[in-house]
Each structure stands twice: as structure tokens, then as C-alpha cells.
């Protein structure tokens, strides 16, 4: 059942011009950044050649590219997630899911995986550019895999947050704005860490991007994996609860 709902979600996304334009814009911007990074690397290469343990192609081109992919996906996410539930509430199509023999958990997970399916396409497309470097240079595969894992987990966490906020309202615009708010807040929450000593660790830990940055450096810590798993789980549970509540109190 989860698969049926996920497939429908994915199908609807690709039936709307929104998904295609987002993919196109994302590729265009990343390609521009990729070219700039590559150009800088080529200029630096003669100097780096003499240094022992100097950063390589993966550190200077691939990781920063995936890093900016994460930033752009954060900006695009609310546009993708806003329609998950809000649109269905508004168009009355949600009652079809409610009447069908599926549980709230299956509905929420189906929608979550549907969105992840779309994001997988976006992520794999943006991975193609750094992968093309392996034709002419040598990549650090472990580092690249760690960065990609980090990016995927962070984007999945964005999706769970967007999913929950979309389940709260029947107005897609409100869902989008609030998702922007929450994502940006968790993005910059670690800025406070630099000014305040005592609470700095908590803020640093809460930040969506700080966990991602260690993975960008090729470091996969179980702490970071658990952090993303917790965020995803927490927001999915909130969404499921909200769906149940809505049936009771709406």
C-alpha cells in the first residue's frame, strides 16, 4: 500500500511542470558552480602538486558541489513538500485515501517515500557532474560516498519536516512559508553556538547542517546518522499524529 501511494505521489509530481522546472533550474545552477569550482581547481593544481597530503579533486570540487546542492534543495524543498497534504485537503481528494483500507502511517510513509523518490532523481542527477571527473582524474570514492550519504540524509530530514508542516494546513502557501521558516531556523541555529559557550554544544548539535558538514569531510559518525534518523522519525510521527487528530477534531 505504501508503494501504491508513493508511486501516485511521484507520478503526480512528474505530471506537474513544477518538478521538471525545479530539476532543470537545479541542474543549471549546479553546473555553473561546478564549472567555477573546476576552473579554480585547475588554477590551483600546480601549487597543490608540491604539497604532501594536499586536498584533491573530491575535496575541492565534488564536496563543495554537493554542499551547494544541499543548500539549493533546502530552498526548493518547501515548494515540493507543500502540496503533499495541503493540496489533497483543499481539493477534497484526501477523502479518497481516508475511505480506502490504508492506515495513516501508510499514507504518511507513502507520501514521504514518494517525495524521496523525486529527490533521489534530483540527487543522482547532481551526482553525475562530480562523477564525470573520474573520466580524467582520480576521485576519493569513500569521501564522495560519505558526502552523498550526508546529503541524502539531510534532504530526507528536510522532507520529513516539510511533510509534517504540510499536514497541518489546507493552504499550500502557508505550508511552504512555515517549512521555509523551520528549515532556515535549523540551518542557522548553530550561529548562536559561536557566541554563547554553555549552550553552544546543544545548538551545534541541533543544526541540520553541522552534521552534514562532518560527512562532507568524509567522516561518517554514528552520532550524525542517529541525528538524522531521529529528525526523520520525529517529524513523521508528528505527521501521523496530525492526520489522526484531523479526523477527530477537524
Amino acid at each position, binding site marked *: 500500500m505504501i508503494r501504491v501511494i508513493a508511486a501516485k505521489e511521484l507520478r*503526480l509530481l512528474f*505530471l506537474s511542470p513544477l518538478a521538471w522546472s525545479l530539476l532543470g533550474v537545479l541542474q543549471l545552477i549546479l553546473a555553473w558552480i561546478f564549472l567555477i569550482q573546476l576552473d579554480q581547481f585547475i588554477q590551483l593544481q600546480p601549487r597543490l602538486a608540491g604539497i604532501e597530503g594536499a586536498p584533491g579533486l573530491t575535496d575541492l570540487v565534488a564536496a563543495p558541489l554537493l554542499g551547494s546542492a544541499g543548500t539549493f534543495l533546502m530552498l526548493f524543498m518547501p515548494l515540493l513538500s507543500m502540496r503533499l497534504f495541503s493540496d489533497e485537503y483543499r481539493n477534497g481528494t484526501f477523502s479518497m*485515501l481516508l*475511505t*480506502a483500507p490504508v492506515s495513516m502511517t501508510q499514507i504518511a510513509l507513502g507520501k514521504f517515500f514518494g517525495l524521496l523518490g523525486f529527490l533521489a532523481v534530483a540527487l543522482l542527477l547532481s551526482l553525475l557532474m562530480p562523477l564525470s571527473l573520474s573520466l580524467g582524474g582520480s576521485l576519493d570514492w569513500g569521501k564522495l560516498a560519505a558526502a552523498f550519504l550526508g546529503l541524502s540524509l539531510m534532504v530526507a530530514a528536510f522532507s520529513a519536516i516539510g511533510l509534517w508542516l504540510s499536514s497541518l494546513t489546507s493552504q499550500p502557501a502557508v505550508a511552504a512559508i512555515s517549512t521555509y521558516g523551520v528549515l532556515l531556523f535549523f540551518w542557522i541555529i548553530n550561529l548562536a553556538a559561536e557566541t554563547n559557550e554553555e549552550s553552544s554544544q546543544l545548538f551545534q548539535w541541533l543544526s541540520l547542517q553541522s552534521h552534514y558538514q562532518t560527512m562532507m569531510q568524509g567522516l561518517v559518525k554514528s552520532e550524525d546518522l542517529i541525528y538524522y534518523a531521529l529528525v526523520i522519525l520525529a517529524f513523521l510521527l508528528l505527521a501521523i499524529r496530525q492526520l489522526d487528530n484531523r*479526523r477527530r477534531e477537524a
Partner: protein
Amino acid sequence: MHTLIQAQQLQRRYGNHLAVDGLDIELCRGDILGFLGPNGAGKSTCMRMLTGNLAPHGGRILIDGLDLLEQPLQAKRNLGYLPETPPVYREMQVDEYLQFAARLNAIPKADCARAVDRAKQRCGLGDVGRRLIGNLSKGYQQRVGIAQAIIHDPMVVVLDEPTVGLDPNQIREIRSLIRELGEAHSVILSTHILPEVQSICNRVQIINQGRTVYSDRLSQAEAAVETLQLRLQHPPGLADLLALPGVDAAEEISQGHFQLRLAADAQIPALAQRVVEHGWGLAALIPQQRTLEQIFVELTAGEVQA
């Protein structure tokens, strides 16, 4: 009789407002229940509760013996629901949408194509399978909505105003479809069109302010003749009319035109014979049944104004 829906003491509040207050609904196989009530009476709320779209604040619902609140997944397999606005994804093609509806209602993949074809054929959607739902007319969207409700051949079909926005031909088709559904399933149908209820339903339940105010089999509701319109060319006084056998009340509507209220055991042939014997110049004698419309207005109009 095999009971398919049994709802007892349903309650639903919106804030402090009690929208549905202790409603009972019971439906057997083969029943087509016309669900009537003025706007805001709680019809839609009630239907949404019966289909699991809203959780009731009190009471319980059994669908074919399964508790909708305790075993929702099993109970919902036997439910099909068309809400007020058809729940269609406008971006999808009809075939694609019905395919999804079939899969969502747990029809095995191998049987999906057959289920989609059957639903399309029953709802007259044969030639629009490849069209985008958003580009279809309101009537066709309504039919797509009905098709998704019956695609898994559910025991209980709940239709909220299914003929709104259809042209007369389509209305006839949908009515015959509902009659056909009623043979093997039970159907609940809400509508504002009273003749529609008289033509397709075999049971009627009128609700007002969240309570049942009338519930009956339709054949009985129509049987008793209660009033008689009488046109006379040489009208006597009202007292003479009241003296006729079986007449409880008489009223002169216009010159020579009377309305008589009859007692339950009144014999119309005997009455007509007496009128002729008196030589009042009988021009017309029209027995009037108490129509559903009269029942509806009597039971609901007063309270709305109050």
C-alpha cells in the same frame, strides 16, 4: 436480512455545536436509503463518519459486522464513498486514476485492468479513458468519482449528492446505475431532489439538526391517501361537506374548489357516490397522497424558523 451498516447513537460536535446528535442508521443488503435533510442538518457529517473520514465523538459503526473504529482496515474494504466534490486528481488521466483507485482499495494487480474496465463501463466512461480528468466536464468528473467509489465492488456505497451537475440524460443513467448497485449492495444516497428519492430509494430517512425525524420504507410512506381535492359546480356549504362519511376537515380553497382531509378509514368510492347523489355537480375529484415533499417540509421547516 443481512445487515450491512449498523450505526448506533452517532455523535459529532464542531466546537460547542452538536452537528450530529444520537443518530441511528441501519441498512440491509438491497436497501437504497435516501438520506434527506435541510442544509446543515448533518447529512454530510454523518456520511463522512460512516466512511471513516471523520471520527465520531460518540456511538459506534459496524460495516458488515466489523467495527469501523476498531478494525478500520478490514471494515473499509467494504466501503465506497463519493464525497460532495469528487475526489479526483485533475492532472491524471481517467484510466490512470482508476488504476490507482483500484490498487488503493487492495485489488490485486492482476485484476486491476478488469476492475477498471468494469467500473468505466458501468459509469459510461468508455470513451474518455485517455482524457485528463481536469479537462472533463463536471458531469464526467462526477462519473469518475462514482467509478472510484464502486471500483472494488464494495458492500456499502455512500454517495453524497451524486447527481449534482449532471444533465437529465446522465441523471437517468446514474439513477439506473444506483438501482443496479442496490440489488447486490446497500447504498446511502443524500440528495435535495425529492423525486429522485421517490424514484430510486426504497427507504428514506429525514434528519434535522442532527437527529432522525422520519424514517420509513417508501412504499408505506406513499400508500395512505390523506387529502382529496374536490371541484364542484353547485357547491354546498362547508357543513354539508363535513357531514360526508370519512371527512375530518374541509376547507374552501376558491369558489367551488375544496380540500378535504380524510380519516384513515375513509372510503373514496362511497364518498364519491354521496357527492353525486347530492347533485353538487362533481367536476373533479383528485385523491392526494401525502408526498415526501410535504413530509419533509412539515418535519423540517418549522424548526428552522424557530
